[in-house]
């Protein structure tokens, strides 16, 4: 048997082994977890009402964001931003001398 024939036989052997492995694992899996039966491939209830309710609640939320007067929207500001604003205000109150130089730079 020459080198090429040996390679071909090895490759065929490997393929046969892999195919055997696949079939064995497939058999075991289908025994442990059989395919979903045909009669269970339909949802048990009509899912449209659930989906429609979700769409409508989103539409209501969208309208509220377009027309803010129709609902009260609270803007949340991080505590760190409040601290920075307080620091800036305190600096201006206690050191009013820096105001002209700030105005000059702006």
């Amino acid at each position, binding site marked *: 048997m020459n080198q090429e024939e040996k390679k071909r036989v090895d490759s065929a052997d490997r393929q046969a082994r892999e195919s055997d*492995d696949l079939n064995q*694992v497939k058999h075991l899996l*289908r*025994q*442990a*977890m059989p395919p979903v039966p045909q009669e269970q*491939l339909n949802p048990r209830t009509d899912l449209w009402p659930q989906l429609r309710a979700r769409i409508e609640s989103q539409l209501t939320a969208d309208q509220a964001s377009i027309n803010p007067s129709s609902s009260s929207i609270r803007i949340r500001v991080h505590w760190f931003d409040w601290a920075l604003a307080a620091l800036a205000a305190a600096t201006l109150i206690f050191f009013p001398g820096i105001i002209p130089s700030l105005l000059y730079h702006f």
Partner: protein
Amino acid sequence: MDLQQRFVAGDLEAFEQLFRDHQRQVYAWIVRIVRDSASAEDLTVETFWRIYRSRSLFRADGNFSAWSHRIATNIALDHLRKSRRETELPDNLLAPLAPDPAISSEMRARIRSAFVNLPPKYRLVATLALIEDAPYEEIAAAAGITVALVKVRVFRATRMLRKQLRSLSVETGAQS
């Protein structure tokens, strides 16, 4: 205007019609992946919700069925990732049609445990290809990968399962 054009324009009635035309296919695809009817129903609603939200990205002359399968597969895969450790299959899906007497119920439980431990992307293709016998082309299209990659993942999933089953003392040569 046809149904898909009206859907893209935001017509809710057109969307309802598309939903009714495709919900069974989408649900059947999802339940085959997640193997739990309650989760499959929630994920079907989530799939159509995402479809509705991203309708502007859909081409009115496109293939709605292929698009919905792609979104459903991504959502089901996310579900497998999130629920990896807590997956328990419902009783009504556990009894094989033709039980092999060489495989005990304890062995079946071990096989299920090994299967749940597969990484989700391998579990997805293994479920569809090995258990549900779905064509590789269909799996590839739905998962957004090539057929060659599906084959590679099936091969790797098989190898991982064999290894895990051996460590759980399950003889893989038990085929009758």
